[in-house]
């Protein structure tokens, strides 16, 4: 049992244990979409929402259904189904009520389902034995952290590509990876900020 309070956990999940910059999760769409800030923000918001809700749903499914029935080894299947179903729901809602956003996000919305970060957050909260409230904080924080990372790296990448003449081969993924590395390095500076117990 971790005794960290939800607020600290939220802060920590965004900065010191950023799910993308520390746990390497959620890179796929990251490399593709981080070109435009607006779509990155829209996607980020969607991810925060999905992550928080699926963290809660998967927590409930694990502790109230799978464990009591001794079926915890099926958690991978159950979690991904819950995530897929939820994303489907979100997709339908967004298409109905926010068509502009739906148009901007395009294919990236259903692709949230296979975003490693979403499944990863659920798996981590089980391993770390978080409570329901902690899971919610962790989900929200991870989502927010992912969004911040994607927007920051995207902005940097745009700036660099516009203003600098890059050596051969650096453009594209290599540059994104190196910028991500520098950002990850910067974020480790936050680890001195958390006071626990």
């Amino acid at each position, binding site marked *: 049992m971790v005794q960290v309070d939800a607020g600290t956990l939220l802060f920590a999940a965004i900065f010191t244990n950023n799910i993308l*910059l*520390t*746990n*390497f*999760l*959620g*890179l*796929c769409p990251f*490399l593709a979409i981080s070109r435009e800030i607006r779509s990155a923000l829209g996607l980020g918001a969607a991810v925060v929402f999905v992550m928080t809700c699926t963290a809660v749903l998967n927590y409930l499914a694990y502790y109230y259904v799978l464990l009591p029935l001794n079926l915890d*080894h*099926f958690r*991978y*299947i159950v979690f*991904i*189904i819950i995530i*897929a179903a939820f994303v489907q729901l979100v997709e339908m809602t967004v298409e109905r009520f926010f068509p502009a956003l739906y148009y901007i996000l395009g294919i990236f919305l259903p692709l949230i389902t*296979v*975003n*490693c970060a*979403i*499944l*990863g957050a659920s*798996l*981590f909260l089980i*391993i770390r034995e978080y409570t329901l409230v902690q899971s919610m904080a962790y989900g929200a924080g991870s989502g927010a952290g992912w969004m911040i990372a994607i927007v920051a790296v995207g902005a940097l990448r745009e700036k660099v590509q516009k203003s600098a003449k890059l*050596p*051969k*081969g*650096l*453009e*594209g*993924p*290599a*540059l*994104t*990876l*190196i910028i*991500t*590395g*520098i950002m*990850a*390095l910067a974020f*480790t500076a936050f680890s001195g900020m958390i006071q626990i117990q």
Partner: protein
Amino acid sequence: MPKPLSSSQIFLQGLWNDNPVLRQILGICSTLAVTNLLVNTLVMNAGLIFTVGMSSLTVSILRNYTPMKIRMMAQTLIIASYVIIVDIAIAAYLPDISEALGPYVGLIITNCIVMGRCEAFAMKNRPWASFLDGLAMSLGYGAVLLIIAVIREPLGFGTLLGYRVMPEGFTPWTIMIMAPGAFFTLGLFVWFLRAKFPQTAEEKKQGH
């Protein structure tokens, strides 16, 4: 319908020409996390190769019976099942490594490569070809991870497979154990490869 590729062509394509990580920068997501130790990387590779190979094989066998509308669900179910099997196997036979790998084995499910190959190749090709394709893609991917691990472990821990390889006085570069080290290593590696072996016209253009 284009002439079906020979086995060796399929293999080569997966291994080099279309190497998922280097060319398409696919699926680095989860597996990069375990590259700070070579032994973990080897086990993760084995798990990935098994999953991609078997999933591609199964999806291909069932491809004519799978309704189009639900094929994503079916693929996910198949992939997830194989991943669970891998996870159980590692927990049973390599318990220490299982703890070290943590949730990353489960995250093979969301690894873009597995789903990508099932959808792009296995759904349209025969079982044996699909199996080879899956094998090649994951081997190519695994090779890249191995190279990264061979750089990260000695620099970060001073060891390789647990055996000390760096001289006694060497101060380990802790950064190599953590995330930034992985990003830099892969980034530099991709840069090097793209500069040395530009494959597509687009990349050649970027060189100037």
